[in-house]
């Protein structure tokens, strides 16, 4: 599906939009969480959805991974799904980060909470720059510690033509943890995204 690829200009544009969205998100999160947050985006990568499960299976090897999906819809036919991958060793850090004591929240709830906070603040920043706005579906846990996430990722990714892999590292004053975010965009919305990027580029 070569027609789904970005031109170098489009890729550069998207990378910059994502960098800025991350900057906006980190600023908001820092104020909300009352701690310094640094969201770093080393690079975005377009990944063939067919390679995606294999890529992440080897990345996480035998470690337990929880996979959480959140769907988004915007104007101009822009829509997609984000997949967040968490290593379970990080759950305690996430609980501290969100200010949860061991009181009343399950692991699943904490992970869906952090996912919606991280993805919606980031995607809002992206939408803002594109003069768009997104609405969101509630986050869902696609697989948890006892399931093989690569199989699940394979069946999820099958429905999408393009996957944009965004590695995110969250650094906080007192803790740091890694997680991965994957932006999945269906072929049709991908065409729209290219148009939107072209319009955006044309305004300069």
């Amino acid at each position, binding site marked *: 599906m070569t027609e789904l690829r970005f031109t170098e200009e489009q890729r550069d544009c998207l990378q910059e939009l994502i960098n800025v969205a991350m900057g906006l998100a980190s600023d*908001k*999160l820092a*104020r*909300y969480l009352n701690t310094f947050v640094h969201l770093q985006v080393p690079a975005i990568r377009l990944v063939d959805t067919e390679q995606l499960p294999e890529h992440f299976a080897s990345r996480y090897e035998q470690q337990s991974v929880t996979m959480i999906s959140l769907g988004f819809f915007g104007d101009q036919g822009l829509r997609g799904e984000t997949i967040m991958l968490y290593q379970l060793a990080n759950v305690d850090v996430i609980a501290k980060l*969100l*200010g*949860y004591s061991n*009181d*009343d*929240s*399950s692991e*699943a*709830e904490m992970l*869906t*909470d952090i996912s*919606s*906070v991280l993805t*919606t*603040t980031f995607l*809002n920043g992206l939408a803002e720059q594109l003069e768009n706005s997104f609405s*969101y579906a*509630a*986050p*869902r*846990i696609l697989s948890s510690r006892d399931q093989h996430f690569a199989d699940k990722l394979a069946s999820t990714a099958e429905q999408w033509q393009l996957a944009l892999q965004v590695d995110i590292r969250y650094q906080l004053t007192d803790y740091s943890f890694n997680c991965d975010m994957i932006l999945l965009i269906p072929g049709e919305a991908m065409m729209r995204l290219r148009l939107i990027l072209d319009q955006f580029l044309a305004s300069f």
Partner: protein
Amino acid sequence: MQLDWLVQPLLTQLNTGVLVLDAAHNIVYFNQFIARRADIQLSDVSGRLVYDIFADAPKAWLQRKIDGVLALQSPAFSSWEQRQYIIKLPHLRPVSSGSQHMAQNCSMLPFKAPNSAEQFVCLLIEDATDAYVYQQQLQHSMAQLELANRTDGLTGVFNRRHWQHELGQEIQRAKRYQHPLSLLLFDLDKFKQLNDQYGHQGGDAVLIELSGIIAALLRDTDVLGRYGGEEFGVILPETDMAGALLVANRICAAAGHQMLFNGHYINATVSIGVSSFSGQTIDELIQQSDIALYNAKRQGRNQAVAWQQQPETYLKKVK
């Protein structure tokens, strides 16, 4: 076309709860969905703190969520799968579901008043009781199915497939931690004769009774399974050959008593082959117990025999 008139009747008829709070978490608005189920009137509670009106809501958690929505200006969500409900409301299927309270999906959305900086949070509450009930039923069925998948229909002990799977796991564990592990294979003596004399029902009754007697002798960590017709296996983790022989002899003694069936006393005895793990594959280990079992039969039945390296016993297997 002017459509403003639509908003009020839609909110009233909407099958989703709409609850709007101001930045201080005071109630600003709710629709009929909530009014009727909670039996409250907006005019009575408007301006009151939401936690005072819905006193059993998870306050600390809800505060954190709503503050997050306001601070980040991005939505938050709650699913019945993680938290069954946020505010206690009755639902419309109190008879068919096991729960009294409505299972809820909730979206919390940020809003800003158009001409001021005033901020609001809107909670959309959906009734997910049906999904909740289906999931409860599904989980129950799955649990039953899984149990059925692992057990032998007649005796209730593990079936061969699951038992062998467990043996594989125990071998891995023994190998990894260098712990002892032993295996018993045993067989009801002269089962064919028994069947001929008392019928298959008699044979079945003996198998059932025998499984019960042996299960009662074992530790929680031992694994009993039905290997074939009248053949059973026991996995003994953390047990060396000497310990395994003790257990095997205890089984021989316990099985050797008379069982009552249809007014007849049936005399059943068992022969047992014992092997211990020392690096063999699962098939080799089973084969060694099987050879020992054959030797127990050959030496007169009703006894336990340990496996020994005896090449001549490989010649032929007769029971």
